[in-house]
Every structure is written in C-alpha cells, then in structure tokens.
C-alpha cells in the first residue's frame, strides 16, 4: 500500500509536464498570431514594392508635320487634335524595321503605353518648335514589358504559357542592349487617377477621395460624438430609463455590421433625401454614423477619467455646470477624446463595405475636386484593382495597400503619442 504523499509525488512530474505544455500552448498561440501578421505584411510589401518603379522606353520620334496631319496650321486647337498616334507608331516602325504581319505589328505598337500619344501631344503643345525635328523621348512601357523587366515573366516557360512571345522578347533584348529600357521611380502612381491601363493607373484620385470623405466625416462626427458623450456623461439624469435606452443603443450600434450602415445610406440619404451616389459627401455621412459610437464610447471613458475634484472645485467657485464642463472637464479629457477620435477616423479610413452600397465603386478616372464630385476611396480602389486580372494590377494593389497601411500606422502612432502624453499628466 502506497501512502498518499507518495501517490502525489509520483504524479507530480506528470503535472509539471502538463504545466509546461500549457504554457507552451499559450506562447505558441501568440506566436501563430504574430507569424500570420508578419507573413501578411511581408507578403504585401514584397509584392507591392516593385510597383514603386516603372519601366520607360526610349524612342527616337520623328515629329513629322505631314504625319501629324497639320497642313501648315499650328494653332493650339490644331495641335491638340493632330494625329500623334501615327507619329508614335511610325517611330516604332523605324526603330524595328521589317516587322510584318498584323499580329506582330499590333504587338509592336503594344510595347509602349497608350498614353504615349498624349504625352507627345502635351510635349508638342508646350514646345511647338520641335515640329519637323527628331526627338529622343521616354515613354511609359506597357504593363507586360514592365512586369517582364521586374522579373515577373519567366523566360524558361514554353512560349504558349507566356504573356510575351519569343519575338517580343527579342525586341526587348534589343532595347535593353541599346539602353532604351530603364526603370525609374513610378511618379505616376502618386500623380494620376485610376485607369484601365495598369501602367497609367495611380492612386491620386482615390487618395483625394479618401481625404474629402474623411474631412466630411471628421467635421460631423467629432462635434456630434463629443457633444453626445458630454451630455451622457455630465448632464444626463442618472437612472433615467431613456438615458439607459440610449446607452444600450449606442453600445449596440458599435457592433452593427458596417454593411448595414451602407443599406441605411442607400435607403435614407440616396433614396429619401436624393443625394447623388458616389460622392464623398454621402460617403462621409455614412462613415459618420458608423464612427459615432466609437467616438462616443471612448470620449465618455476619457470624461469619466477626469477626477471629480476638478468638477467640485469649479462648482465650488461658482461656475455653472456648463462652464465647469467646458472650461475644466473637457480640456482635461481632450487628449483621451482626441485619441478615440483618431482611432475612429482610422477605422473609417479603412472601411470598404458600406461605401460599396452607396455607389463609390464606379470607375472614375478624374481626380475629384470637391465633396460633390463622384469619387472613390483608397480601400475601394484596392478592392477594384484586386479584381483586375492583369499582373501589374496585383502589384499596384499591394502598393496601394502599403500606402493605406502607412496612413493608418501614422494615425495610430499619433493616437499612441497622445495617450502617452495624457498618462504622464495624471
């Protein structure tokens, strides 16, 4: 017969092993989560990084006034509508003489971007004296060439599986040998609106759209959210049924799926008030309603953290309730309120689903000028591009994600800094 002490001692090693295992489970759960986060970030940045470069092709362009169809007229209007396409195509032909067959000729034209003719047009309009001269110009390369230059097309694959055929590769090799291909910083990505052609597509339109939408959201949700929080925290009667209902309601709203806010926007703002679709104004309105609960909840927490002695001191000196609140309590809570607002704004900046419902998914190439112009926003642009089959768009999608994440990191850092400052004061 073994004594109880011995029984327990025998079990002890097993129990300690169990303890160790449990601890490892916990640590590995954290490790798995962090590993996933890292793989996401690394994956996105490795695919997105090449998009910050763009291949350019150098071509000697013979700006022949006959080919331009100018007939001796050099007015701006004539220059604007001249036939630049022909000039560009002819220059390509001179560069690669002996290209025959419809298919090959078409492929030759597709070495450079469709934007080349507009680039040439602007160049000629700005410098009219280049007409009837030979100029060496750099044009955007087509997306396939660009992808190849960044190593996205494998030469060793059989020809039928490649986007670029053997004769096209031969052209590219010649261009490379003559130093006519160059990778430069992709400035277009930041200065252009959306486009169907990957090499011309940029995020400026989406960035401005996001900015305008955020502007509307901020100007509405900050004052409304903070006033609501102040009322609920400082003025509302305690133990009142209505106030209880409002509180429960706000907590519930914070957890309502964002897409439902899109339905609300569609039915009320578009269907009932007749605000046009796709404009930053309506996007901002919907995002305001969505971020209000976040701002109210965090502002209330910040107000609650202000020590009651401040209130009592002010009231004791004869300040009214409103004066106490606005002169003493709110300033003391401001860092906390701003932190909550920034986090709410960051949420709104990354939001996509409700904006799909109110028509901000339309293809818009123009950069919006005001809150009443049709536009899209950065996350929706990411969604739109991710749907495009071209490989160059995948790259650009990741690059746009990098920009979006960068903005979010800046906003969150701001919130963290403010929170630190807030904590030091206390």
């Amino acid at each position, binding site marked *: 017969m073994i004594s109880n002490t011995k029984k327990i001692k025998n079990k002890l090693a097993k129990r300690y092993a169990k303890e160790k295992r449990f601890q490892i489970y916990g640590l590995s759960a954290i490790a798995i989560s962090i590993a996933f986060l890292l793989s996401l970030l690394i994956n996105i940045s490795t695919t997105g990084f090449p998009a910050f470069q763009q291949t350019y092709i150098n071509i000697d362009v013979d700006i022949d006034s006959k080919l331009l169809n100018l007939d001796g007229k050099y007015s701006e209007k004539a220059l604007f509508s001249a036939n630049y396409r022909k000039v560009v195509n002819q220059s390509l032909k001179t560069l690669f003489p002996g290209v025959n067959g419809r298919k090959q000729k078409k492929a030759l034209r597709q070495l450079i971007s469709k934007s080349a003719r507009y680039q040439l047009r602007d160049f000629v309009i700005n410098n009219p004296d280049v007409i009837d001269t030979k100029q060496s110009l750099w044009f955007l390369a087509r997306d396939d060439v660009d992808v190849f230059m960044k190593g996205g097309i494998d030469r060793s694959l059989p020809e039928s599986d490649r986007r670029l055929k053997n004769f096209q590769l031969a052209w590219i090799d010649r261009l490379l040998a003559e130093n006519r291909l160059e990778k430069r910083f992709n400035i277009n990505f930041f200065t252009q609106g959306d486009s169907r052609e990957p090499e011309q597509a940029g995020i400026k339109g989406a960035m401005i759209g996001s900015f305008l939408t955020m502007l509307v959201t901020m100007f509405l949700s900050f004052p409304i959210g903070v006033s609501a929080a102040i009322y609920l925290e400082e003025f509302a009667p305690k133990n009142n049924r209505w106030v209880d209902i409002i509180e429960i309601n706000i907590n519930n709203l914070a957890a309502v799926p964002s897409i439902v806010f899109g339905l609300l926007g569609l*039915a009320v703002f578009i269907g009932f008030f007749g605000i046009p679709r796709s404009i930053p104004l309506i996007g901002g309105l919907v995002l305001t309603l969505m971020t209000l609960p976040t701002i109210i909840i965090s502002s209330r927490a910040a107000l609650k953290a202000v020590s009651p002695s401040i209130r009592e001191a002010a009231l004791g000196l004869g300040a009214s309730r409103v004066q106490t609140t606005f002169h003493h309590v709110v300033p003391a809570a401001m860092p906390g309120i701003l932190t909550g607002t920034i986090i709410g704004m960051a949420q709104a*900046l990354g939001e996509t689903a409700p904006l799909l419902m109110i028509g901000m998914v339309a293809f818009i190439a123009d950069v919006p000028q005001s809150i009443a112009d049709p536009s899209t926003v950065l*996350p929706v642009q990411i969604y739109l591009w*991710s749907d495009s089959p071209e490989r160059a768009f995948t790259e650009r999608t990741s690059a746009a994600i990098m920009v979006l994440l960068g903005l979010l990191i800046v906003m969150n850092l701001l919130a963290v800094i403010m929170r630190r400052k807030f904590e030091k004061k206390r």
Partner: protein
Amino acid sequence: MTFGVILTALMALLLLGYYTGRKRSISLSDKSNQRLHSLPQHYGYLIAFWSGAPALLILLFWSVLESSVINAAIVAQLPAQLQQLSADEVELFINEIINLSYSNVAIDDDVKRHAALYYNELIEFSNWVKSTAVFILAFIGMFVALAFVKPEMKARNLVERLIRWAMIGCTSIAVLTTIGIIFSVIFESIIFFKTVNVFDFLFGTHWSPQEAIREDQVGGSGSFGALPLFVGTLLISFIALVIAVPLGLMSAIYLSEYSSPRFRLFAKPVLEILAGIPTVVYGFFAAITVAPFIRDLGESLGLSLSSESALAAGIVMGVMIIPFVSSLSDDVISAVPQSMRDGSYAMGATKSETIKQVIIPAALPGIVSGVLLAASRAIGETMIVVMAAGLSANLTFNPLEAVTTVTVQMVALLTGDQEFDSTKTLAAFALGLGLFLTTLVLNIISLYVVRKYREQYD
C-alpha cells in the same frame, strides 16, 4: 452664389453678430449704470445664434429641395410626348440637360437647348432668391435679438439652455440612426415579402436572383431561397471561430497569467494590430495568397479544392477576430479576484490547474460574451468573403467547397446597375434585415452577460 460662398458669408455674419452683441451689452450697462447679469460674451453668443441658426436652417432646407423643384419645373415645360416617358427616362433626360447646361458645347436639338437654357435661368434665379432670403433672415435675426438685449437679461442661462438642447440633439442622432436602420430595412423588406413568400425566402434551397429578361432565358429563374446563404455564412463563421477561439483564448491566458510585463507590453499591441488592419487587406491576402496556398496544399494531399473555398475565407477571418476574443478574455481574466487564485495555489494546484479549474470557470460568462461578439463580427464581415469566397450558392457543409454568404450576396445585388425598387435590390434589404437581427441578438446577449458578470465581482 454657391452653397460654400453663402456659408462662408454667413460665418462672417455670425462673428459680426457675436461682436456687436458683446459691445452692445457693455455699452448698455455703462449707460444705465446697471451691472450685467451675465458676462458680455454670453450676449454675443446669443446674438450670433439668432443671426446664424434660422438662416442656416433655411439654407439647408432650400439646398435639399432645390434640385427636385427645378427638375419638376423643367419636366413641366417639356413637350407632351417627352413628359409621357417613364420616370427613369425622364431622369436620364434631365441629367443630360444638366450636363449640357454646364458645358459650352453648341446644342443642336431645339428642345434640349431650350431646356438647358431654362435650367440655367432657374438655377440662377434660385441662387439669387436663396442668398437674398438667407441674408435677410440673418440680419432680421441679428437686429431682433439685439433689440432684446438688456443688462438684466439672463443671457448665460439662455445660452446654456441652447447648449444643452444642442447636446441632446447630438445624442439623439445615435438613436435616430438605429431607427433609420430599422425602418429602412423593414420597409424595403415588407415590399420584398409581398412578392416572395417569407418561408420560401427563409427555407428555400435555391438561390438565383437573376431575373429573366427574355421569356426563354435559361437560368434566370429569379428564385430567392436564402438557406444556402445562411448555411454558407454559418460555415465560414464557424471556421473562423474554430481558429479564433483557441488562439485568442490561449493568448489571453498567457498574457494575463504567465507573461512578463515587458513581453505583455510588446505582444498586446501587436495582437491589436490584427484588429486594425482594414478588412479589404485581409480579403486581398485571402484571395491572392491563402486561397492558392490551401488549394495547392489540398492538391498535394490528393483533394480537389475550388480556388474559392470556404476554408481560406474562414481562416483569414478567424485571424482577424483573434483580438476581439483575446482582449475581452484578457479583461475578464484579469478581473477574476486574486483571492481565488491564492486559494487554489494554497490547495497545492499548479498554475495551469488553477487556470483550468478556477479562473476559466469564473471568467466563463465574460469569455462567452467575447466569443459571441466575435461571432457577430464574423457574420457581418463583408470584404473578406466578397474577395475570397465565391458567388455560387451551394448548400453544403463541406469547407473545401465554394460557398457564398449573406453579405456577399448583398454586395452582389446592390453594386450592379438596376433601379432602386427591383426585386433584386429589395432582396438585399431583406438579407440586411436578417443580418441586422442576428447580430443584434448576439450583441444584446453578450452585453447582458458582460453586465451581469461585472456586477458579480465589483
């Protein structure tokens, strides 16, 4: 004048009102040798309010109604045969005229040119009347309010009452939002359920919302059996929870019970980052990286997977909701009183035994409510499933097949081009009603549980 210009001018008037009000109160008290009841700026605020608020209301009201009134006026003067067009065609026509009136292009069509000119005239007239009305009202408000200023007037109390009402107005927006959601979703759903039977919608197994345009079109049956969507949503949410609950719970336990403060300070914010990444990023990652990876993995194991499997979307969604589970669990585990731990240690239990047999049972209600909140997140999540799950409505519980969800179908139904009250858009609202009610019930239960639990240990 445009809306922006009027608004800026109004703001300037507001400032003017504030300063004249302040000045007048001071000069009045000087003249009558009477002390002011309130500080001079309170009189200023009061004047500013009366010069700004009524004018602003009119401005907003006018701007909202303007376009519909003008459109109606244009339609009224169109030739009779144009007026008989359907509402959509009339709207198209008006849009064309508005675009024409802004551009400088010469218009060949007589009717259109007249309409465009008329439109320009009306807009000009409306702008003129609007700005005059707004400014007259602003000045009337200012002068009437100035006339009321007396030293014994209780300006501070009036201003404070105004502030209080403004704050109540702001608070009620939150309530109005809920009411707006409920009404907009319910109204459209009622119209939808007039054409589609409720039971067919809830329990029908065939979902193909495409309506036949031609009589003989194949596949355009327009049937709205939403059961496959509900099952798909549940399947993906279940996969997400299978990933998120163990990972989130174990992380929370480790962080609150085992980790050193320094590690906690590092790991907690890193986990929170997962909640801050926009869902569209997760969706892209799921579609471009995780789904192909899982497909290749399945192929190497001899399984045939569709590239849009429920598994990929579910896994990524699970990772997204880890922080929801972990931070709530962390809170409730930290809230378990130390005395309970000490009691367990005193009985000779190891740390893990204490956690399993004392802390988790004590924190269970809080953990459950965290899981419920995470589940409601998963059910309502849109972008991940839109980008990584498919559109094909399969009624299946197999995670390797492609399924579709309620939110995916809502996006699909509403992002196409169709008129507002077609059965398809209405179906999206009916789905939205279901989604709203489900998440509402989950949220209410979880909030109730949390509240109940907090009282227990406070």
